[in-house]
């Protein structure tokens, strides 16, 4: 019975191709807009999530907070030192690893090639904390750290830009005005939001201190790994406590540092993307409403046009429910076919859009978005199809048969 009705519906749609297409337009636009935006937003979200998930939920990042507009900070020297990090590791509970990071832009040279990269002075647990590991060669040894050895690790982009040839390991690299021996190559990370993640040189933090001096070391970034997801929040509170005491920040004055958890980073980006999605959802619901009214309109026309047919069907034994189901299925079929076209068009637009913006991650359409689009389309069909279908079902067979 359902199958027969579906065939009748498809036949009616095929018989009035242009009209059906125009009717579906509202649904197509609505669904295509959802899918296009969701695919772009989700592509972004997908990339950000996988990047942050790489460092894990136990990742904690502390960095100096500098805000010229903030009266609490004005006139203070904002510092975040290696010693702060050591104090935190000593007193806070629930932390496993500590990694101080010194960041500076530098020019790297090899032979006649020059390239500007990020120079990072890192501690012995850099790999564990950032969950980014050596690919070839070795990481810095304890001896390297103790002796402030002139050794470095590089990312793939530096090798490519400077056209360093094999054997890469053991080759000398000039960073700023100092020479380093390359001892390892870090894992390839690719791009994130158009930013190359492999354009860096790592050197031991002790070496960096020797070269750039104590003064340059007053503002570091301190990364930690907590022991478990359960201890993260507690560790964060303890870090704040310890730093406020060490920095002698009076009661009621804001921190001169900021502690970020991986989870919070995700939440922030998630919130932004969520806002975009809900704004679009609002626009789309209007499109779907208009589409639904279009369907109701055309179904009413269809019922009037087919009054005699309804009369015949009733005369040969169709119940009210049979007629109701027939027209409901027709309305839902129109909205679902519209939804299907909308998903395809939206997907295409998403791919085009993501490709048009340089460095943008590829569009990604999650299954839930497709399910949601179809669900809404079906809902619109049922909602706006009910009135015309009920009108058809209620027709008096004698009147309907007399209808010209």
């Amino acid at each position, binding site marked *: *019975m359902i*199958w*027969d009705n579906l065939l009748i519906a498809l*036949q009616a749609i095929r*018989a009035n191709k242009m009209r059906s297409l125009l009717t579906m337009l509202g649904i197509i636009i609505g669904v295509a807009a959802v899918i296009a935006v969701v695919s772009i937003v989700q592509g972004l979200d997908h990339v950000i999530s996988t990047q942050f998930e790489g460092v894990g939920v136990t990742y904690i990042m502390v960095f100096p907070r500098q805000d010229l507009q903030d009266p609490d900070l004005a006139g203070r020297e904002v510092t975040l030192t290696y010693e702060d990090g050591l104090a935190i590791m000593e007193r806070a509970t629930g932390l496993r690893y500590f990694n101080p990071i010194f960041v500076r832009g530098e020019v790297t040279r090899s032979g006649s090639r020059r390239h500007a990269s990020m120079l990072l002075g890192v501690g012995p647990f850099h790999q564990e904390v950032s969950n980014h590991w050596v690919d070839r060669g070795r990481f810095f040894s304890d001896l390297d750290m103790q002796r402030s050895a002139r050794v470095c690790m590089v990312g793939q982009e530096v090798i490519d830009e400077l056209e360093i040839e094999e054997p890469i390991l053991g080759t000398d690299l000039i960073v700023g005005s100092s020479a380093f021996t390359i001892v390892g190559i870090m894992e390839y990370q690719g791009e994130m939001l158009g930013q190359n993640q492999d354009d860096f040189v790592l050197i031991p933090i002790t070496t960096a201190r020797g070269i750039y001096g104590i003064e340059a070391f007053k503002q570091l970034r301190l990364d930690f790994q907590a022991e478990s997801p359960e201890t993260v929040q507690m560790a964060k509170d303890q870090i704040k406590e310890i730093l406020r005491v060490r920095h002698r920040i009076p009661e009621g004055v804001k921190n001169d540092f900021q502690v970020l958890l991986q989870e919070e980073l995700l939440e922030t980006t998630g919130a932004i993307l969520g806002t975009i999605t809900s704004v679009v959802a609002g626009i789309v619901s209007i499109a779907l409403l208009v589409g639904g009214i279009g369907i109701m309109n055309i179904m009413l026309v269809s019922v009037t046009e087919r009054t*005699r*047919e309804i*009369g*015949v*069907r*009733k*005369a*040969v*034994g*169709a*119940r*009210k*429910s*049979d007629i109701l189901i027939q027209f409901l299925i027709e309305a839902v079929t129109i909205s679902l076919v519209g939804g299907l076209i909308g998903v395809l068009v939206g997907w295409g637009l998403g791919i085009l859009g993501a490709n048009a913006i340089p460095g943008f991650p590829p569009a990604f359409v999650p299954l839930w978005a497709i399910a949601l689009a179809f669900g809404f389309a079906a809902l619109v069909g049922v909602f706006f199809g009910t009135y015309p279908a009920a009108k058809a079902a209620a027709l008096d*067979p*004698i009147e309907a*048969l007399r209808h010209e």
Partner: protein
Amino acid sequence: MLISIRNLRKIYRMGQVEVRALDGVDLEVEAGEYLAIMGPSGSGKSTLMNLIGCLDTPTSGEYILNDQRVSDLDDGELASIRNHEIGFVFQTFNLLARATALANVELPLIYARVPARERHRRAREVLERVGLGDRVKHQPNELSGGQQGRVAVARALVNKPSILLADEPTGNLDSKTSAEIMELFDELNAAGNTLIVVTHEEDIAAHARRVVRMLDGKVVADERTSPAKAAP
């Protein structure tokens, strides 16, 4: 007795005016009869046909069809009676324009919830019986008037109804096609089908074995032109 009608009334109210479309009709029809209902427009013959065909419910009176009191059935039950007991042949045949002959004939079987394979088989069988075995895949606009009429008759017959009801079956046809349809009716009656034909044309009524004449909602004459065939 196939049809037993007692004191059947149908009264329409149009504002203050009461229209007695049927004003106490008694009628009995046996299985296998070939009956013509005649009368000028407004005589109530269409109302009577709608009531016999279970498309409408009477204001008062009793209608027993095949031992069932149909005069007080509800909408859904009437739909089932129409499906199983009545075969309609409409004035303009009322075939579904975009459906093939086969699909048109299958229509009553769809509402009888007959499975698709069985439906095709039975519809094809009936189309062959009315001589359209080679036209099953044709749409109504690809068929002649006479052929369309045959499809309509096939649709009426396919669910093996107790009565075949025809409303002015030749109203819009040329005389040659009319003759073709009436010949088919004669054959069907000869094969044992009960036929009730509503018409205002004497030469159509002449095919019937019994003529009921109506005027102002009442039966004014009931003549047997030849003895009704006994029920098998």
